[in-house]
């Protein structure tokens, strides 16, 4: 193959005329404008949440509703800890969520690899079945699933919440499969020539190249488990085992809702999610993907 002089991006850029630069700046300005405008839109409900959490009870119900309180009152935040065992709920949520994320990531990556890159007999059949498990509304399988866990004696423990995650989650398996299929075959072939078996390829090629998608799975899995109240509701009977999402429901009584403490509790619940997301989204930036040469 001939070696042709390559026009580097740098050399091309250096030749750009001024009008193009101005266009770029306009573009950047517009992008900022859009970002800020949309941010306000998206931030608004969260601000309202915080605003309500620092309002005293009677102002929370004022008409018309106000965004910022006239009288700041942190009583709601204190109440959250005195009315319910919030600290315990936090601990429980952390335990359950971390375990679920580990289980989900480990099992889903393995299974997704099988579906994505190993052509076995019957693969399509099982893939359709995999998707099929997501198509039946869970409301009608809630009771039989409960019966299974009841027979195992796992009711009122964290086991029904955690163990299933170690068997893969259909949603994430499907997602990871989509990502795993974008990794070129050439990489696999060179690894194969180096003596790697299927698992070696999985561990040394696929996983390192899939960091953004795996981080995504971890993040989403964390969010969902953290906010899930239905499973804790059904399987946990002791107050000392409650997770945050379930604990906060206690502020929604049969006849009246305690908005103040509920919003304050919500702020506490969302805070770690925000931090984790902010940290995690950095890892979406993957380095320039090496494609192993186009030759």
């Amino acid at each position, binding site marked *: 193959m001939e070696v042709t002089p390559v026009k580097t991006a740098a050399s091309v850029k250096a030749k750009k005329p001024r009008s193009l630069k101005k266009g770029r700046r306009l573009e950047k300005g517009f992008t900022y404008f859009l970002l800020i405008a949309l941010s306000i839109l*998206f*931030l608004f409900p969260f601000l309202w949440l915080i605003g309500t959490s620092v309002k005293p009870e009677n102002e929370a119900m004022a008409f018309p509703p106000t965004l910022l309180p006239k009288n700041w009152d942190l009583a709601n935040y204190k109440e959250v800890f005195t009315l319910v065992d919030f600290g315990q709920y936090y601990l429980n949520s952390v335990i359950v969520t971390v375990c679920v994320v580990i289980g989900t990531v480990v099992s889903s990556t393995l299974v997704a690899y099988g579906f994505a*890159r190993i*052509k076995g007999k019957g693969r399509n059949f099982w893939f359709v079945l995999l998707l099929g498990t997501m198509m039946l509304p869970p*409301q009608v399988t809630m009771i*039989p699933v409960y019966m299974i866990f009841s027979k195992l004696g796992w009711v009122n423990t964290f086991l029904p919440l955690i163990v299933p995650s170690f*068997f893969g989650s259909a949603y994430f398996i499907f997602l990871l499969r989509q990502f795993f299929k974008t990794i070129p075959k050439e990489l696999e072939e060179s690894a194969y020539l180096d003596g790697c078996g299927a698992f070696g390829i999985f561990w040394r090629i696929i996983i390192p190249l899939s960091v953004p998608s795996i981080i995504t799975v971890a993040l989403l899995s964390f969010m969902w488990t953290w906010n899930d109240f239905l499973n804790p509701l059904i399987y946990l009977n002791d107050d000392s085992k409650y997770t945050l999402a379930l604990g906060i429901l206690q502020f929604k009584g049969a006849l009246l809702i305690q908005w103040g403490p509920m919003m304050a509790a919500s702020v506490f619940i969302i805070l770690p999610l925000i931090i984790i997301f902010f940290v995690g989204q950095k890892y979406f930036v993957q380095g320039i993907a090496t494609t192993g040469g186009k030759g």
Partner: protein
Amino acid sequence: MKEAGYIAVNDFIKWKVTQMNKSRTLLFYLFILPWLIGFVVFTAGPMVYSLYMSFTDYSGLGAANWVGLENYKKLFTEDPLFWQSLWNTFFYTIVGVPLGLVVGYMLAVLLNTKVRFMGLFRTIFYLPSLVPTVASSLLWILIFQPDFGIANSILSFFHLPTSNWLLSEGMVKPTLIIMSLWGAGGGMVIYLAGLQSVPASLYEAAELDGAGKFHKFWNITIPMTSNVIFFNLIMGLIGSFQIFTQAYVVSSGNGGPNYKSLFYVFYLYQDAFKFFKMGYASALAWILFIIILVFTLIQFKVFGKKVYYEYDE
């Protein structure tokens, strides 16, 4: 002599390939074993159980008596709410899913640009999907309050017609769709990961060839993220057909006004846990299952081939 050699080699290759395929199959099952076990233990049984329930008059308590196709018959012939809820769900899905796809994708593209504080912006855009439904629903009710809500205030400021939003039979579903767009963060994150996985070298090569913004977007970005677009399409469909929590909360549990926000799974949930008709609800569930399955298979047939995978085996 040469031919004999070829035949022998061909046979050998065929045999080798069959061997390889056998071991491939074994490997495949080995890797999906975790899911397979989970499926058999936790999922298959309950699914079959609920199918059985759909042929009984099970109320959730006590005995379940066989009634054959009675539930299904009632569904189709005597239950106007079945059709109403099905229509509600269809409308929501057919309008909401494409809209959600486009909006989510656009947001992700916006958040993929090299701008300062991008991390902050991304977090802010994702924030709405973190707010608990109970809290956000009240906020929406206040925003769409016909009398003093912001929505109507802004509209009347610009002399545009106002609406009763959640209380209007015609507008309640579109309003719910608008509410769902605000929570587009979930899909957006997946698009982001997909966008980040597009090799920068492709863009650079295109730039060298003089490609403009739109050209790059249409011919590189979209095809290279078709894997996640397809994912969000399928999952959007499956999820949208089962929507109900938001509607349940803003309509205070009655699916109003006049059943116009009664979504299918909402109706199912009501029958199962409020009216103690678990058998009937199971029949509803399986009808939905078939509908979703058919739609998904159609999507695979229509769009499946258009998705670009590097590894297409």
